[in-house]
């Protein structure tokens, strides 16, 4: 979280912000991020910064795997998922590990 917060603060400062209202993060289903832990850390770290009192908006990105057999992608919400067409498990993750600072709402 300090990575997300310090990146947000740096970007806000560069944009000449005097206050941050909303921090939007994109979080992959398999990023390993626990939203509660993120919120908790944010509340611990934000006071005294431009982002004090800001809202955290979390946007989820579903996981997509590539199936070697079917030569196509399939969506899943966990790592144990097999291809719905041929039932072959895949570890070729194409999306879902994102942890990204998407945008900021500032003044």
């Amino acid at each position, binding site marked *: 979280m*300090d990575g997300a917060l310090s990146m947000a603060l740096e970007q806000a400062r560069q944009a000449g912000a005097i206050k941050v209202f909303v921090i939007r993060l994109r979080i992959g289903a*398999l990023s*390993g991020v626990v939203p509660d*832990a993120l919120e908790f850390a944010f509340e611990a770290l934000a006071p005294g910064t431009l982002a004090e009192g800001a809202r955290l908006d979390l946007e989820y990105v579903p996981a997509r795997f590539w199936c070697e057999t079917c030569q196509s992608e399939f969506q899943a919400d966990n790592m144990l998922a097999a291809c719905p067409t041929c039932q072959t*498990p895949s570890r070729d993750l194409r999306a879902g590990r994102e942890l990204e600072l*998407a*945008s900021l709402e500032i003044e």
Partner: protein
Amino acid sequence: MCKDCGCGLPGETPIGITGEGHSHPHSHDHTHDHDHEHDHDHPHTHSHAHSHGGTSHSHPHSHGGNAEDHHHDHDHDDATSQDQHRTIEIRRSILEKNDRLAERNRGFFRARGLVVLNVLSSPGSGKTTFLRETVKALGDRLKCGIIVGDLATDNDARRLRESGAPVVQITTGTVCHLEAEMVGRALGQMDLGGLDLLIIENVGNLVCPASYDLGEDFRVVLLSVTEGEDKPLKYPPMFNAADAVIISKIDLAEPCGFEREAALANIRKVSPKAKIFELSAKTGVGMAAWCDHLVEAREGRTNEDPFLT
């Protein structure tokens, strides 16, 4: 602090890095320089594709020469948006800094021809014993160096030094994982001359270290028979990222009632392509196949990925 668990909150202990300079059995009365300083100022570029999915507003955007200057304001025509609020798009990975430093480490390792392992598991699965015995069993076939991470103490470093390999201990204080930057600093404490294999023993933790690339070639995840067959299902990100899974302490399989077939099936489910090794560092069973594999990895590093079948 860790993005996953919030460890390392304010008040954290500084990261400590301890080489073995103080514990050499012989003393030098002259200073000697290591020649493996590496520059930290090579230019890097990062690209950031950016597309909007569902939103209907569009905003032309151009980047000036400055790569850092890539936020861009855009106006909403509808007057309903809060008076002074404006939105700036950023779209940058939070782990970007670690990933960048990991790539720097990787380049450094490649340039030296080092094969690098990132060894991960829960606490107590036998990483340290396994690695000490690995180094001993490899003998002259591969010259090894070890970087070991723990929250506190240099107990593991001392145990690992029994193998004869150079060892650098990183103490992370309250941080639950190693980061690329810590590894980069630890490298400055080790004489890498003549090494073939660098083993990084991560902090015992099956969650957060999965997110932090250190610049390694291969991730090795241990599962001891005392932990239960369903560990891979409980911690899929860690096992999914494994190039090799080691089932350790197999000398205890019987007393523990370890169900081998179930464990193998669970590993396969989460990590269909990882190589699986079953061994006991204590009795030596299975160590030869593992060591052969490492030698092969070193020999074939310019060829195909030997960890993937």
